[in-house]
């Protein structure tokens, strides 16, 4: 078995994760974790939909921010996709998508403040980077034949519009619709840093132990996501896109002087700002590296590796839940519900909930990341098994699982997993805001101390780390000949 490179790679990552477990801080620190968990589930079972007058406005804002952000992101992303073959464009896109929406929001909050633009750009910018990459991949795979058949002298734009787009239209549309769902999740969590979306109220209810209120918000959010096919109709889309900007709320007016100040003063390293010279600057930098960046990087990497393997294990355990090759319709339906909930809940919210219940350590983060990402991959793999035809005399039960199905889907399973590696790392970094000592913790501390120069350096480091993991993930996927469609 070890002769297969995929198996060797799997064991290597498993070993790294196990070593990570030895050094990681994995503990439940609350004295009564199960009692709190019970109270939480009781809250979800007895939701209170009328707790906050602002709840429905918040839901509306969540949708509005998602629509405006994703629309803007997809337009910019599409334009960037057209010039994606240029290296500087690719680097630029890799960079803007390596920075998480919440980090973008924290940056814009410093100069746009509570203006809707903060939330819109926080979604639109990283999404533009992702759209650019995926759109260009889709466009590249289009059949070149129709273009060749056009009469000579056809304008490039016409050729693009009539020979290229029609071939990829379905894919472009599917992917954009899929990102809209991601946009709803992003929009919801922006509330955690103060924007008027669902996260704002969710955080308030949770932190005060009002689980019935929080349960109501979660249920509304699931319903919103699960009913996307019902209310997001191609014919209605233009109406939504036009209406959405009017539902963002007014926020507070932008003072443009703040923008200039942020870029010309706030983010300049303090020794330079004070004109203290190079010696001071290198002291400043090494202090930042040794006390914040390095511990942050270490914890981010350790947590990412553990979460990656936990995600893999959970995906492999979860896909039979929705596979036609096992069980009856009842189990498959409940399996679907479980996976929908797992993948619709943003990692950030899951981690937040588990941290409240179990206390601070890496454990809640690992479980949250594994649940969310495992839910996504389990769903995709489970769906894939449904297209497989087994021999009529194929074994059943565990033998069917381990000898028939897993080997057949293992390649695409690894492809999805390595695709999500970078996404898991981006989330891991951001979970630091919740109090786990990853890079996000130090970024948040710097912002809390009004030291944006430090925060920017740390965000840059986070982005570079992400770009590195992205490249490594792509390398491994190429080496193992793994192909996949993008997920978010």
């Amino acid at each position, binding site marked *: 078995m070890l002769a297969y490179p995929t198996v060797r790679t799997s064991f290597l990552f498993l070993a790294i994760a196990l070593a990570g477990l030895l050094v990681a801080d994995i503990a439940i620190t609350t004295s*009564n974790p199960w009692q709190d968990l019970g109270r939480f589930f009781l809250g979800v079972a007895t939701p209170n939909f009328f707790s906050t007058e602002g709840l429905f406005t918040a839901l509306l804002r969540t949708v509005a921010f998602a629509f405006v952000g994703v629309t803007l992101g997809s337009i910019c992303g599409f334009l960037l996709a057209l010039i994606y073959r240029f290296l500087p464009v690719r680097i630029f896109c890799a960079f803007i998508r390596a920075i998480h929406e919440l980090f973008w929001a924290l940056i814009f909050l410093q100069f746009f403040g509570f203006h809707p633009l903060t939330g819109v750009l926080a979604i639109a910018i990283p999404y533009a980077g992702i759209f650019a990459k995926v759109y260009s991949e889709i466009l590249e795979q289009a059949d070149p034949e129709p273009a060749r058949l056009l009469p000579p002298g056809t304008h490039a734009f016409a050729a693009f519009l009539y020979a290229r787009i029609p071939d990829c239209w379905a894919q472009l549309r599917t992917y954009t619709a899929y990102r809209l769902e991601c946009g709803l999740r992003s929009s919801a969590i922006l509330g955690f840093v103060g924007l008027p979306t669902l996260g*704002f109220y969710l*955080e308030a209810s949770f932190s005060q132990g009002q689980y019935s209120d929080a349960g109501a918000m979660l249920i509304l959010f699931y319903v919103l996501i699960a009913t996307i096919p019902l209310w997001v109709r191609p014919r*209605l889309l233009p109406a939504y896109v036009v209406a959405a900007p009017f539902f963002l709320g007014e926020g*507070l007016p932008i003072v443009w002087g703040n923008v200039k100040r942020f870029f010309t003063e706030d983010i300049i390293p303090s020794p330079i700002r004070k004109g203290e010279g190079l010696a001071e600057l290198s002291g400043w930098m090494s202090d930042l590296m040794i006390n914040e960046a390095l511990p942050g990087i270490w914890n981010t990497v350790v947590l990412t590796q553990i979460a990656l393997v936990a995600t893999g294990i959970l995906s492999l355990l979860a896909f039979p839940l929705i596979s036609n090759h096992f069980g009856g319709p009842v189990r498959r339906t409940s399996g679907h519900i479980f996976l929908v909930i797992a993948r619709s809940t943003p990692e950030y919210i899951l981690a937040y909930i588990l941290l409240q219940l179990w206390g601070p350590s890496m454990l809640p983060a690992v479980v949250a990341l594994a649940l969310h990402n495992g839910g996504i991959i389990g769903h995709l793999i489970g769906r894939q098994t449904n297209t497989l035809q087994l021999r009529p005399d194929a074994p059943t039960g565990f033998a069917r699982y381990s000898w028939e199905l897993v080997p057949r889907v293992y390649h695409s399973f690894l492809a999805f997993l390595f695709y999500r590696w970078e996404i898991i790392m981006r989330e891991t970094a951001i979970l630091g805001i919740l109090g786990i000592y990853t890079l996000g913790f130090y970024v948040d501390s710097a912002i809390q*101390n009004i030291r944006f120069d430090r925060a920017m350096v740390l965000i840059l480091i986070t982005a570079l780390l992400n770009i590195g993991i992205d490249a490594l993930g792509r390398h491994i996927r190429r080496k193992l000949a793994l192909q996949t469609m993008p997920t978010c």
Partner: protein
Amino acid sequence: MSNKTFRKWAAASLLSLSASTVAIADTFVFTAIPDEDETKLVERFRGVADYLSEQLGTEVRYIPVKSYAAAVSAFRNNQVQLAWFGGLSGVQARRLVEGSEALAQGVEDEAFQTYFIANTNTGIEPGDSLQSMADDLKDRTFTFGSKGSTSGRLMPEFHIREAFESAPEDVFSRVGFSGNHTRTLRLVEAGTYEVGALNFQVWEKELSDGNIDTDSVQVVWKTPPYPDYQWTIRGDVNERFGDGFKEKVKQALLNLDDPALLESFPRSGFIPASNDDYEPIRKTAESIGILD
């Protein structure tokens, strides 16, 4: 959803939206650091907004924020003109906004205190100084409040560093930031953290309201007094809201005598304050390196 129901839904939302937003052009906006449970803050500061609006004859609006830094940033960016800051956030804000002034502080803020609290399962007994409790405290789990808090972070960290001559991370086995004082209280009460430090007013108010399980958590040490919360206003408000506006705000705050409103802070009243009152806070913050 059909077109018709969508239109209905859109119209309904538009109505609710226009009802919930107000014109901001000449609205005097203030905020406060989110040091306690949000519902309490919203209730308290809506009351203050109504009161100020009546006294000043201008529209006054309170906006809730999610972090201490967000309050400072909003003040600095002139999106709010007045703020109820803690000692440290006030110092940070006034350093960043030239001409801004501490207007008024609570009577209790002249001599504010931090209480160190411990879960009773730890067996930690109340002591006279942190040094004398060293054996009991070392390697416990410990939580501050917010990273930007004076009573929940700055002062307790200062005293920990003084007593143990090392950083909190080296004294305790685990150091966390609960987010706010109410959370610190709940986390130590539940045993998630063994020891914590919080604003003494929050403790006293929760205690008198009967919201603390005194069998699970007790005060083990009290810091010496220091200056804390204050109302800080931007220097340019007179240009925007008319001559003498700053003085009007100050008088309104000093005259605030609605017992229910004062009780919600909880403060017995407000007295004049000045920027110089907070020099000790600035020095402390510099000495532990959270202010450049």
